């Protein structure tokens, strides 16, 4: 296996804290292996910065397996970078060329305020979930057999597809309106397709949409950018489903 290395120029958004004004700063990095993940490349930069006695760049990360939804970053003009169906932690440096300049910015949205450098506060998504992204199930007493309620295979598959949303916020970051509709629609869909979710269907969609608007996200204009940039390939079908759910709930 070849092991090409590359030298890069990084232009990174640096911001001391939420209140400070940020700016782009330039950092050269050398000897980056093409097999490194993007976050490993940033680790190399940070080690270099620490050695130089400078403040390392703050960025969000956790599992580094593409499943937790913690990593973010707007890389060279796209959420999670130029690759498709991957999170930043699964983006490899082979996607870049030796000598390239890479722009790294935080996800930008009024609903995602910057905490520091590349870290943004995505707790708006938590509040939307708290507003209605759940089913009320009595967990005391006897456990109910999961297969006691029959679910058509197609519905189960679609609900599962919606449930693969990791809540990273790439949809908001990519949308020209900073709309959170793809995320909210996935969280509405994963329940609305299943019998267990039907009980609270009306309240769920109304409350979650209300909270989404309160958080300051923009309006969806169906550009489809969210679907393209979503690392889990969440479909626009979910937004259409949420629109139907919302219309149904408002007419009831």
């Amino acid at each position, binding site marked *: 296996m070849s092991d090409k290395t590359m030298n890069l120029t990084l*232009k990174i*958004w640096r911001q001391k804290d939420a209140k400070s004004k940020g700016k*782009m700063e330039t950092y050269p990095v050398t000897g980056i292996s093409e097999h490194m993940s993007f976050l490993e490349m940033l680790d190399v930069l940070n080690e270099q910065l620490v050695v130089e006695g400078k403040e390392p760049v703050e960025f969000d990360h956790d599992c580094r397996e593409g499943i937790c939804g913690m990593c973010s970053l*707007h890389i*060279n*003009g*796209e959420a999670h970078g*130029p690759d498709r169906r991957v999170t930043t932690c699964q983006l490899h440096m082979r996607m870049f060329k030796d000598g390239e300049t890479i*722009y790294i*910015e935080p996800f*930008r*949205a*009024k*609903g995602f305020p*910057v905490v520091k450098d590349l870290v943004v506060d995505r707790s708006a998504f938590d509040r939307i979930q708290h507003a209605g992204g759940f089913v009320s199930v009595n967990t005391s007493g006897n456990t109910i057999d999961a297969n006691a309620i029959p679910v058509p295979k197609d519905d189960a598959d679609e609900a599962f597809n919606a449930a693969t949303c990791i809540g990273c916020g790439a949809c908001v970051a*990519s949308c*020209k*309106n*900073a*709309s959170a*509709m793809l995320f909210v629609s996935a969280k509405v869909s994963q329940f609305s397709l299943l019998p267990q979710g039907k009980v609270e269907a009306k309240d769920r969609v109304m409350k979650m*949409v*209300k909270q*989404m*608007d309160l958080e*300051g*996200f*923009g*309006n*969806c*204009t*169906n*550009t*489809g*950018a969210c679907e*393209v*940039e979503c690392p889990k390939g969440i479909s*626009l*079908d979910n*937004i*259409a*489903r*949420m*629109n*139907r759910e*919302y*219309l149904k709930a*408002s007419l009831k």
Partner: protein
Amino acid sequence: MKTSIARKVLMALSGFFLIVFLLQHFIINFTSVFGHGETFNSLSHFMGTSPMVQFVAQPILIFGVIFHLAMGMYLEAQNNKARNVKYVMNKPGENASWMSRNMIITGVMILLFLGLHFYDFWIPEIKTKFIDGDMSGALNGVEGTRYFHELQHKFVDVWRVIIYCLSFVFLSLHLLHGFQSAFQSVGFRNHKYLPTIKKLGNLYAVLIPAGFIFIALFHYLTQL
């Protein structure tokens, strides 16, 4: 009107209404290329003098146009606020079409065209009928025949023809996104009928504006 989904549904419904209006406008205009505009004259006379069209359909249409425009601009302003700090490097072309990202530009161009179009046809129509009180539609004493003449008269000026044709290109770009987007907004979408809606939308967005361009050019060229 209170939530983002309610607003997008209303935007879509007014869009559907305008799509249907545009189709009937095209059909009537298209009759002007046949014969000496006899069918065009009789249809225009009917539309111009029918109380149902003038006092029921026309106010609804004007409301629909104003609502669609005002809501479009309001949403644009709100959406701009939703990203208060812009990206230094952004590649929106990588994930969304130009048409879908620039509905406000194509929309404003259509609005400017509507200004000219109202100045050309609607204002003189209202003046003749409701200020001068002439409901006869008469040309040289023959009732209901002035419409074809007025239409032809407008397409003598080459600059007007060019502006009309360019406006129809903007209309086409607007419809290329707007048609399918309206279906998505009202929740009418799934993998079974999405390809059909997209094809139908593209067909409508190309054929109707192309038809209007044909009509404008036809009248210009036949009067050279």
